[in-house]
Protein backbone atom coordinates (compact mmCIF):
# COMPACT_ATOMS: atom_id res chain seq x y z
CA UNK A 1 0.00 0.00 0.00
CA UNK A 2 1.02 3.62 -0.55
CA UNK A 3 2.71 5.10 2.53
CA UNK A 4 1.03 8.22 3.91
CA UNK A 5 3.18 10.85 5.59
CA UNK A 6 2.51 14.45 4.56
CA UNK A 7 -0.74 14.40 2.62
CA UNK A 8 -2.26 17.31 0.69
CA UNK A 9 -5.65 17.25 -0.92
CA UNK A 10 -8.98 18.90 -1.54
CA UNK A 11 -11.94 17.85 0.56
CA UNK A 12 -15.63 17.15 -0.05
CA UNK A 13 -18.26 17.66 2.65
CA UNK A 14 -21.01 15.11 3.22
CA UNK A 15 -23.01 16.80 5.94
CA UNK A 16 -24.92 13.73 7.17
CA UNK A 17 -24.77 11.82 10.45
CA UNK A 18 -24.83 8.04 10.92
CA UNK A 19 -23.86 7.31 7.33
CA UNK A 20 -24.13 3.51 7.24
CA UNK A 21 -22.21 1.06 5.10
CA UNK A 22 -25.39 0.08 3.23
CA UNK A 23 -25.35 3.63 1.82
CA UNK A 24 -21.59 3.63 1.24
CA UNK A 25 -21.80 0.45 -0.83
CA UNK A 26 -25.27 -1.12 -1.30
CA UNK A 27 -25.59 -4.89 -1.03
CA UNK A 28 -26.24 -5.56 -4.71
CA UNK A 29 -22.58 -4.75 -5.43
CA UNK A 30 -21.05 -7.16 -2.91
CA UNK A 31 -20.93 -10.05 -5.32
CA UNK A 32 -17.58 -9.47 -7.00
CA UNK A 33 -14.56 -11.15 -5.46
CA UNK A 34 -11.88 -8.52 -6.17
CA UNK A 35 -11.18 -5.58 -3.89
CA UNK A 36 -11.00 -3.17 -6.78
CA UNK A 37 -13.60 -1.47 -8.92
CA UNK A 38 -16.11 -0.66 -6.17
CA UNK A 39 -15.67 3.11 -6.54
CA UNK A 40 -18.23 3.40 -9.31
CA UNK A 41 -20.86 2.02 -6.91
CA UNK A 42 -19.93 4.25 -3.96
CA UNK A 43 -23.08 5.84 -2.42
CA UNK A 44 -24.91 4.33 -5.39
CA UNK A 45 -28.49 5.01 -4.28
CA UNK A 46 -27.64 8.57 -3.31
CA UNK A 47 -25.55 9.29 -6.39
CA UNK A 48 -27.86 7.82 -9.03
CA UNK A 49 -31.60 7.73 -9.61
CA UNK A 50 -33.68 4.67 -10.62
CA UNK A 51 -32.53 5.09 -14.23
CA UNK A 52 -28.85 5.26 -13.31
CA UNK A 53 -28.70 9.02 -13.93
CA UNK A 54 -26.65 11.20 -11.60
CA UNK A 55 -28.70 13.04 -9.00
CA UNK A 56 -27.45 16.65 -9.30
CA UNK A 57 -28.35 17.50 -5.69
CA UNK A 58 -26.16 14.80 -4.14
CA UNK A 59 -23.03 16.28 -2.56
CA UNK A 60 -20.44 14.24 -4.47
CA UNK A 61 -22.09 15.03 -7.81
CA UNK A 62 -21.67 18.78 -7.33
CA UNK A 63 -18.91 20.42 -9.42
CA UNK A 64 -16.90 21.77 -6.48
CA UNK A 65 -16.57 18.27 -5.01
CA UNK A 66 -14.93 16.75 -8.08
CA UNK A 67 -11.33 15.54 -7.75
CA UNK A 68 -11.41 15.54 -3.98
CA UNK A 69 -9.49 12.96 -1.96
CA UNK A 70 -10.59 13.83 1.57
CA UNK A 71 -14.16 13.17 2.74
CA UNK A 72 -15.63 15.13 5.65
CA UNK A 73 -18.77 13.63 7.19
CA UNK A 74 -21.01 13.67 10.27
CA UNK A 75 -20.73 11.61 13.44
CA UNK A 76 -20.84 7.80 13.62
CA UNK A 77 -19.61 7.45 10.04
CA UNK A 78 -19.54 3.87 8.73
CA UNK A 79 -22.09 2.34 11.08
CA UNK A 80 -23.98 -0.88 10.35
CA UNK A 81 -22.74 -3.87 8.43
CA UNK A 82 -19.01 -4.52 8.88
CA UNK A 83 -18.50 -5.12 5.13
CA UNK A 84 -14.92 -4.30 4.17
CA UNK A 85 -16.26 -3.24 0.79
CA UNK A 86 -17.08 0.12 2.45
CA UNK A 87 -13.46 1.30 2.77
CA UNK A 88 -12.60 -0.45 -0.51
CA UNK A 89 -15.20 1.59 -2.37
CA UNK A 90 -14.23 4.90 -0.73
CA UNK A 91 -10.57 4.25 -1.53
CA UNK A 92 -11.33 3.13 -5.08
CA UNK A 93 -13.40 6.28 -5.65
CA UNK A 94 -10.37 8.30 -4.56
CA UNK A 95 -10.72 9.06 -0.85
CA UNK A 96 -7.58 8.43 1.21
CA UNK A 97 -8.54 10.46 4.27
CA UNK A 98 -11.87 10.62 6.12
CA UNK A 99 -12.64 13.34 8.66
CA UNK A 100 -15.62 13.00 11.03
CA UNK A 101 -16.46 13.60 14.70
CA UNK A 102 -16.69 9.82 15.29
CA UNK A 103 -16.71 6.47 13.53
CA UNK A 104 -18.21 3.04 13.91
CA UNK A 105 -15.37 1.02 15.36
CA UNK A 106 -15.22 -1.83 12.84
CA UNK A 107 -15.33 0.56 9.89
CA UNK A 108 -12.56 2.64 11.40
CA UNK A 109 -10.16 -0.28 11.70
CA UNK A 110 -11.13 -1.55 8.25
CA UNK A 111 -10.05 1.85 6.89
CA UNK A 112 -6.64 1.70 8.51
CA UNK A 113 -6.12 -1.87 7.33
CA UNK A 114 -6.64 -0.57 3.81
CA UNK A 115 -4.25 2.34 4.01
CA UNK A 116 -6.78 5.07 4.73
CA UNK A 117 -6.64 7.54 7.61
CA UNK A 118 -9.89 8.08 9.56
CA UNK A 119 -9.33 11.32 11.48
CA UNK A 120 -11.62 12.23 14.37
CA UNK A 121 -11.99 15.96 15.03
CA UNK A 122 -14.43 17.78 17.28
CA UNK A 123 -17.87 18.66 15.94
CA UNK A 124 -16.89 22.34 15.97
CA UNK A 125 -13.79 21.66 13.88
CA UNK A 126 -15.75 19.48 11.46
CA UNK A 127 -18.37 22.23 11.07
CA UNK A 128 -15.62 24.78 10.48
CA UNK A 129 -14.07 22.69 7.69
CA UNK A 130 -17.44 21.85 6.12
CA UNK A 131 -18.23 25.53 5.75
CA UNK A 132 -15.00 26.20 3.87
CA UNK A 133 -14.21 23.20 1.71
CA UNK A 134 -16.27 24.26 -1.29
CA UNK A 135 -13.88 27.14 -2.05
CA UNK A 136 -11.85 26.17 -5.15
CA UNK A 137 -8.44 26.91 -3.65
CA UNK A 138 -9.15 25.32 -0.29
CA UNK A 139 -6.69 22.55 0.46
CA UNK A 140 -5.96 20.54 3.58
CA UNK A 141 -2.57 19.25 4.69
CA UNK A 142 -2.36 16.24 6.96
CA UNK A 143 0.96 15.61 8.65
CA UNK A 144 0.62 12.05 9.90
CA UNK A 145 3.99 11.76 11.70
CA UNK A 146 3.16 14.92 13.67
CA UNK A 147 -0.59 14.17 13.82
CA UNK A 148 -1.64 17.61 12.65
CA UNK A 149 -4.13 18.95 10.12
CA UNK A 150 -4.07 22.46 8.68
CA UNK A 151 -5.67 24.46 5.89
CA UNK A 152 -2.89 26.96 5.12
CA UNK A 153 -5.25 29.78 6.06
CA UNK A 154 -4.67 29.75 9.77
CA UNK A 155 -6.59 26.67 10.84
CA UNK A 156 -4.49 24.04 12.55
CA UNK A 157 -5.40 21.19 14.84
CA UNK A 158 -4.02 17.87 16.05
CA UNK A 159 -5.62 14.44 16.09
CA UNK A 160 -5.18 11.15 17.90
CA UNK A 161 -4.09 7.92 16.26
CA UNK A 162 -2.83 4.71 17.85
CA UNK A 163 0.98 4.38 17.43
CA UNK A 164 0.56 0.93 15.86
CA UNK A 165 -1.73 2.20 13.11
CA UNK A 166 0.31 5.34 12.64
CA UNK A 167 3.42 3.27 11.90
CA UNK A 168 1.47 0.93 9.60
CA UNK A 169 0.12 3.87 7.59
CA UNK A 170 3.41 5.76 7.43
CA UNK A 171 5.20 2.64 6.19
CA UNK A 172 2.38 1.58 3.90
CA UNK A 173 2.08 -1.79 5.59
CA UNK A 174 -0.89 -4.03 6.06
CA UNK A 175 -1.07 -7.02 8.43
CA UNK A 176 0.26 -9.38 5.80
CA UNK A 177 3.36 -7.19 5.34
CA UNK A 178 3.93 -7.37 9.10
CA UNK A 179 3.52 -11.13 9.17
CA UNK A 180 5.97 -11.51 6.29
CA UNK A 181 8.66 -9.85 8.36
CA UNK A 182 8.61 -12.93 10.55
CA UNK A 183 9.01 -15.24 7.57
CA UNK A 184 12.17 -16.89 8.97
CA UNK A 185 10.61 -17.59 12.36
CA UNK A 186 7.41 -18.87 10.78
CA UNK A 187 9.32 -21.27 8.53
CA UNK A 188 11.38 -22.52 11.46
CA UNK A 189 8.22 -23.11 13.48
CA UNK A 190 6.45 -24.87 10.67
CA UNK A 191 9.34 -27.20 10.00
CA UNK A 192 9.00 -28.75 13.49
CA UNK A 193 8.04 -32.40 13.55
CA UNK A 194 4.54 -33.36 14.68
CA UNK A 195 3.53 -29.71 14.74
CA UNK A 196 -0.15 -30.37 14.22
CA UNK A 197 -0.43 -32.76 17.16
CA UNK A 198 -1.27 -29.74 19.35
CA UNK A 199 -4.57 -29.48 17.52
CA UNK A 200 -5.56 -32.97 18.61
CA UNK A 201 -9.04 -33.15 20.09
CA UNK A 202 -7.81 -34.86 23.24
CA UNK A 203 -5.45 -32.06 24.25
CA UNK A 204 -6.12 -30.45 27.63
CA UNK A 205 -8.00 -27.51 26.15
CA UNK A 206 -11.61 -28.64 25.77
CA UNK A 207 -12.36 -26.58 22.68
CA UNK A 208 -9.23 -27.28 20.66
CA UNK A 209 -11.39 -28.50 17.79
CA UNK A 210 -12.63 -24.96 17.31
CA UNK A 211 -9.18 -23.57 16.51
Amino acid sequence: MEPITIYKGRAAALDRKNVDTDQIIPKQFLKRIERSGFGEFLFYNWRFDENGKERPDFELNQPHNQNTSILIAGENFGCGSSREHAPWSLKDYGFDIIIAPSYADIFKSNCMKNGMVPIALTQTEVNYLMERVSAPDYELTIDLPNQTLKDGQGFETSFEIHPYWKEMLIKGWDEISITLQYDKEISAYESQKNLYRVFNRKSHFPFSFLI
Partner: protein
Amino acid sequence: MEERMTVCNMSIEGGARAGLVAPDETTFSYLKGRKYLPKGEEFERCVQDWKSLSSDEDAVYDQEIILDGSLISPMVSWGTNPGMASGVDGKVPTFAEEIMDPKELNRAIEYMGLEEGMPITEIPVQHVFIGSCTNSRIEDLRQAAEMIEGQTVQKGVRAMVVPGSQSVKRQAEDEGLDEIFKSAGFEWRESGCSMCLSMNPDVVPAGEHCASTSNRNFEGRQGAGARTHLVSPAMAAAAAIHGKFVDIRNLKRTEQVQ
Protein backbone atom coordinates in the same frame (compact mmCIF):
# COMPACT_ATOMS: atom_id res chain seq x y z
CA MET B 1 -30.51 -17.88 26.05
CA GLU B 2 -31.39 -17.15 22.47
CA GLU B 3 -32.71 -13.71 23.41
CA ARG B 4 -29.26 -13.02 24.85
CA MET B 5 -27.84 -13.85 21.44
CA THR B 6 -30.16 -11.22 19.95
CA VAL B 7 -28.90 -8.64 22.44
CA CYS B 8 -25.28 -9.52 21.60
CA ASN B 9 -26.02 -9.35 17.87
CA MET B 10 -27.65 -5.93 18.23
CA SER B 11 -24.82 -4.44 20.33
CA ILE B 12 -23.03 -3.83 17.04
CA GLU B 13 -25.86 -1.47 16.07
CA GLY B 14 -25.14 0.43 19.28
CA GLY B 15 -21.58 0.98 18.08
CA ALA B 16 -19.94 -1.96 19.85
CA ARG B 17 -17.43 -4.32 18.28
CA ALA B 18 -18.92 -7.24 20.22
CA GLY B 19 -21.52 -7.93 22.91
CA LEU B 20 -20.94 -10.54 25.62
CA VAL B 21 -23.12 -12.11 28.30
CA ALA B 22 -21.23 -13.86 31.11
CA PRO B 23 -21.89 -17.62 31.16
CA ASP B 24 -24.19 -18.82 33.94
CA GLU B 25 -26.61 -21.67 34.66
CA THR B 26 -28.82 -20.55 31.74
CA THR B 27 -25.84 -20.92 29.42
CA PHE B 28 -24.74 -24.28 30.81
CA SER B 29 -28.19 -25.85 30.65
CA TYR B 30 -28.61 -24.53 27.09
CA LEU B 31 -25.34 -26.20 26.06
CA LYS B 32 -25.81 -29.50 27.92
CA GLY B 33 -26.51 -32.41 25.60
CA ARG B 34 -25.96 -30.43 22.39
CA LYS B 35 -24.25 -31.88 19.38
CA TYR B 36 -20.47 -31.30 19.19
CA LEU B 37 -20.17 -30.74 22.96
CA PRO B 38 -18.38 -33.05 25.37
CA LYS B 39 -20.58 -35.37 27.46
CA GLY B 40 -20.64 -36.45 31.10
CA GLU B 41 -17.65 -35.67 33.27
CA GLU B 42 -15.84 -33.86 30.49
CA PHE B 43 -18.81 -31.51 30.13
CA GLU B 44 -18.71 -30.81 33.87
CA ARG B 45 -15.01 -30.01 33.59
CA CYS B 46 -15.81 -27.58 30.81
CA VAL B 47 -18.49 -25.91 32.95
CA GLN B 48 -15.93 -25.35 35.71
CA ASP B 49 -13.62 -23.81 33.13
CA TRP B 50 -16.38 -21.61 31.66
CA LYS B 51 -17.28 -20.30 35.11
CA SER B 52 -13.88 -18.61 35.15
CA LEU B 53 -14.85 -16.56 32.08
CA SER B 54 -17.03 -14.03 33.95
CA SER B 55 -15.62 -10.60 34.71
CA ASP B 56 -13.78 -10.25 38.00
CA GLU B 57 -15.85 -8.88 40.88
CA ASP B 58 -13.56 -5.88 41.13
CA ALA B 59 -13.46 -5.22 37.37
CA VAL B 60 -13.59 -1.53 36.46
CA TYR B 61 -15.71 -0.30 33.54
CA ASP B 62 -15.76 2.99 31.67
CA GLN B 63 -19.50 3.15 32.11
CA GLU B 64 -22.16 0.99 33.73
CA ILE B 65 -25.75 1.21 32.54
CA ILE B 66 -28.52 -0.73 34.26
CA LEU B 67 -31.71 -1.32 32.31
CA ASP B 68 -34.89 -2.89 33.65
CA GLY B 69 -36.22 -4.93 30.75
CA SER B 70 -39.65 -5.22 32.34
CA LEU B 71 -40.12 -1.47 31.94
CA ILE B 72 -39.30 -1.40 28.21
CA SER B 73 -42.29 -1.43 25.85
CA PRO B 74 -42.06 -3.66 22.77
CA MET B 75 -39.92 -1.54 20.45
CA VAL B 76 -40.59 -0.56 16.84
CA SER B 77 -38.06 1.35 14.73
CA TRP B 78 -39.67 4.20 12.79
CA GLY B 79 -36.57 5.64 11.12
CA THR B 80 -33.54 4.70 9.06
CA ASN B 81 -31.15 3.45 11.71
CA PRO B 82 -31.78 1.11 14.65
CA GLY B 83 -31.52 3.98 17.15
CA MET B 84 -34.54 5.67 15.60
CA ALA B 85 -37.05 3.60 17.52
CA SER B 86 -39.92 4.03 19.92
CA GLY B 87 -42.11 1.86 22.14
CA VAL B 88 -45.17 0.55 20.25
CA ASP B 89 -47.26 2.75 22.58
CA GLY B 90 -45.20 5.78 21.51
CA LYS B 91 -45.05 8.15 18.56
CA VAL B 92 -42.70 9.25 15.83
CA PRO B 93 -40.78 12.20 17.37
CA THR B 94 -41.72 15.78 16.54
CA PHE B 95 -39.36 18.56 15.52
CA ALA B 96 -40.50 20.56 18.54
CA GLU B 97 -39.24 17.88 20.92
CA GLU B 98 -35.69 18.56 19.68
CA ILE B 99 -34.48 15.08 20.55
CA MET B 100 -32.39 14.85 17.40
CA ASP B 101 -30.89 16.85 14.56
CA PRO B 102 -33.90 18.21 12.60
CA LYS B 103 -32.16 17.47 9.27
CA GLU B 104 -31.73 13.82 10.24
CA LEU B 105 -35.32 13.58 11.46
CA ASN B 106 -36.59 15.14 8.26
CA ARG B 107 -34.56 12.81 6.04
CA ALA B 108 -35.75 9.78 7.99
CA ILE B 109 -39.47 10.52 8.10
CA GLU B 110 -39.45 11.59 4.47
CA TYR B 111 -37.83 8.31 3.42
CA MET B 112 -40.16 6.33 5.68
CA GLY B 113 -43.27 8.19 4.50
CA LEU B 114 -44.32 9.12 8.03
CA GLU B 115 -45.56 12.28 9.72
CA GLU B 116 -43.94 13.73 12.83
CA GLY B 117 -45.85 12.79 15.98
CA MET B 118 -47.67 9.91 14.29
CA PRO B 119 -48.61 7.04 16.66
CA ILE B 120 -46.58 3.90 15.91
CA THR B 121 -49.79 1.84 15.84
CA GLU B 122 -51.02 3.84 12.82
CA ILE B 123 -48.15 2.75 10.57
CA PRO B 124 -49.53 0.34 7.94
CA VAL B 125 -47.64 -2.93 7.37
CA GLN B 126 -47.63 -4.70 3.98
CA HIS B 127 -44.75 -7.14 4.54
CA VAL B 128 -43.67 -9.24 7.49
CA PHE B 129 -40.28 -10.90 7.61
CA ILE B 130 -39.53 -13.28 10.47
CA GLY B 131 -35.97 -14.37 9.87
CA SER B 132 -32.24 -13.42 9.93
CA CYS B 133 -29.35 -14.40 12.20
CA THR B 134 -30.64 -11.85 14.71
CA ASN B 135 -34.05 -13.34 15.38
CA SER B 136 -34.97 -16.69 13.85
CA ARG B 137 -33.81 -19.29 16.29
CA ILE B 138 -36.18 -21.88 17.64
CA GLU B 139 -37.26 -19.79 20.67
CA ASP B 140 -38.06 -16.90 18.32
CA LEU B 141 -40.17 -19.10 16.06
CA ARG B 142 -42.03 -20.55 19.06
CA GLN B 143 -42.89 -17.06 20.29
CA ALA B 144 -44.06 -15.98 16.84
CA ALA B 145 -46.13 -19.14 16.37
CA GLU B 146 -47.77 -18.70 19.76
CA MET B 147 -48.82 -15.20 18.74
CA ILE B 148 -50.66 -16.27 15.57
CA GLU B 149 -51.95 -19.79 16.25
CA GLY B 150 -55.45 -20.24 14.80
CA GLN B 151 -55.48 -16.76 13.18
CA THR B 152 -55.06 -15.53 9.62
CA VAL B 153 -52.63 -13.09 8.07
CA GLN B 154 -54.34 -9.78 7.25
CA LYS B 155 -55.43 -9.40 3.63
CA GLY B 156 -52.85 -7.47 1.63
CA VAL B 157 -49.98 -8.55 3.87
CA ARG B 158 -47.21 -10.80 2.60
CA ALA B 159 -45.70 -12.67 5.54
CA MET B 160 -42.80 -15.10 5.53
CA VAL B 161 -40.80 -17.14 7.99
CA VAL B 162 -37.20 -17.93 7.15
CA PRO B 163 -35.68 -20.16 9.84
CA GLY B 164 -32.20 -19.22 11.05
CA SER B 165 -30.66 -22.51 9.90
CA GLN B 166 -31.64 -25.88 8.47
CA SER B 167 -31.44 -27.44 11.93
CA VAL B 168 -33.79 -24.78 13.32
CA LYS B 169 -36.10 -25.50 10.38
CA ARG B 170 -36.13 -29.25 11.08
CA GLN B 171 -36.70 -28.69 14.78
CA ALA B 172 -39.57 -26.28 14.10
CA GLU B 173 -41.13 -28.84 11.75
CA ASP B 174 -40.76 -31.56 14.39
CA GLU B 175 -42.65 -29.29 16.79
CA GLY B 176 -45.34 -28.55 14.19
CA LEU B 177 -44.60 -24.82 14.06
CA ASP B 178 -44.46 -24.85 10.26
CA GLU B 179 -48.10 -25.97 10.14
CA ILE B 180 -49.15 -23.13 12.44
CA PHE B 181 -47.43 -20.61 10.18
CA LYS B 182 -48.63 -22.11 6.91
CA SER B 183 -52.25 -22.43 7.99
CA ALA B 184 -52.18 -18.77 9.08
CA GLY B 185 -50.99 -17.78 5.61
CA PHE B 186 -47.26 -17.35 6.17
CA GLU B 187 -44.73 -18.59 3.63
CA TRP B 188 -42.49 -21.26 5.23
CA ARG B 189 -39.09 -20.95 3.59
CA GLU B 190 -35.64 -22.49 3.48
CA SER B 191 -33.06 -20.91 5.77
CA GLY B 192 -30.93 -18.05 4.45
CA CYS B 193 -30.42 -14.30 4.64
CA SER B 194 -33.51 -13.58 2.54
CA MET B 195 -35.16 -10.24 3.24
CA CYS B 196 -32.61 -9.17 5.85
CA LEU B 197 -30.58 -7.57 3.09
CA SER B 198 -32.46 -8.66 -0.04
CA MET B 199 -29.52 -9.89 -2.09
CA ASN B 200 -31.91 -12.54 -3.43
CA PRO B 201 -35.33 -11.82 -4.99
CA ASP B 202 -36.95 -11.37 -1.52
CA VAL B 203 -37.29 -7.62 -1.90
CA VAL B 204 -39.71 -5.12 -0.34
CA PRO B 205 -41.07 -2.84 -3.11
CA ALA B 206 -40.34 0.89 -2.88
CA GLY B 207 -42.65 2.76 -0.54
CA GLU B 208 -44.01 -0.32 1.24
CA HIS B 209 -43.56 -1.01 4.93
CA CYS B 210 -42.05 -4.19 6.32
CA ALA B 211 -42.13 -5.42 9.92
CA SER B 212 -38.80 -7.19 10.09
CA THR B 213 -37.02 -9.15 12.81
CA SER B 214 -33.64 -8.47 11.19
CA ASN B 215 -31.01 -6.11 12.59
CA ARG B 216 -30.85 -3.16 10.19
CA ASN B 217 -33.32 -0.64 8.84
CA PHE B 218 -31.03 1.52 6.73
CA GLU B 219 -32.28 3.16 3.54
CA GLY B 220 -32.60 0.59 0.80
CA ARG B 221 -31.55 -2.31 2.99
CA GLN B 222 -34.59 -4.45 2.04
CA GLY B 223 -34.80 -2.99 -1.46
CA ALA B 224 -34.58 0.48 -3.03
CA GLY B 225 -37.16 2.66 -1.28
CA ALA B 226 -38.21 -0.14 1.11
CA ARG B 227 -39.39 1.03 4.54
CA THR B 228 -38.15 -1.31 7.27
CA HIS B 229 -39.43 -1.40 10.85
CA LEU B 230 -37.36 -3.51 13.22
CA VAL B 231 -39.40 -5.50 15.74
CA SER B 232 -39.23 -8.69 17.81
CA PRO B 233 -40.53 -11.99 16.37
CA ALA B 234 -43.73 -11.80 18.46
CA MET B 235 -44.36 -8.20 17.38
CA ALA B 236 -43.76 -9.09 13.72
CA ALA B 237 -46.16 -12.04 13.95
CA ALA B 238 -48.88 -9.86 15.51
CA ALA B 239 -48.33 -7.21 12.83
CA ALA B 240 -48.97 -9.85 10.16
CA ILE B 241 -52.35 -10.69 11.69
CA HIS B 242 -53.44 -7.05 12.15
CA GLY B 243 -51.79 -5.32 9.18
CA LYS B 244 -50.31 -2.75 11.56
CA PHE B 245 -48.28 -2.65 14.75
CA VAL B 246 -50.11 -3.74 17.88
CA ASP B 247 -49.00 -3.83 21.50
CA ILE B 248 -48.60 -7.55 22.13
CA ARG B 249 -48.91 -6.97 25.88
CA ASN B 250 -52.55 -6.01 25.31
CA LEU B 251 -53.18 -9.04 23.11
CA LYS B 252 -51.94 -11.35 25.80
CA ARG B 253 -54.08 -9.64 28.40
CA THR B 254 -57.23 -9.94 26.25
CA GLU B 255 -56.60 -13.61 25.73
CA GLN B 256 -56.24 -14.13 29.44
CA VAL B 257 -59.57 -12.36 30.08
CA GLN B 258 -61.30 -14.47 27.47
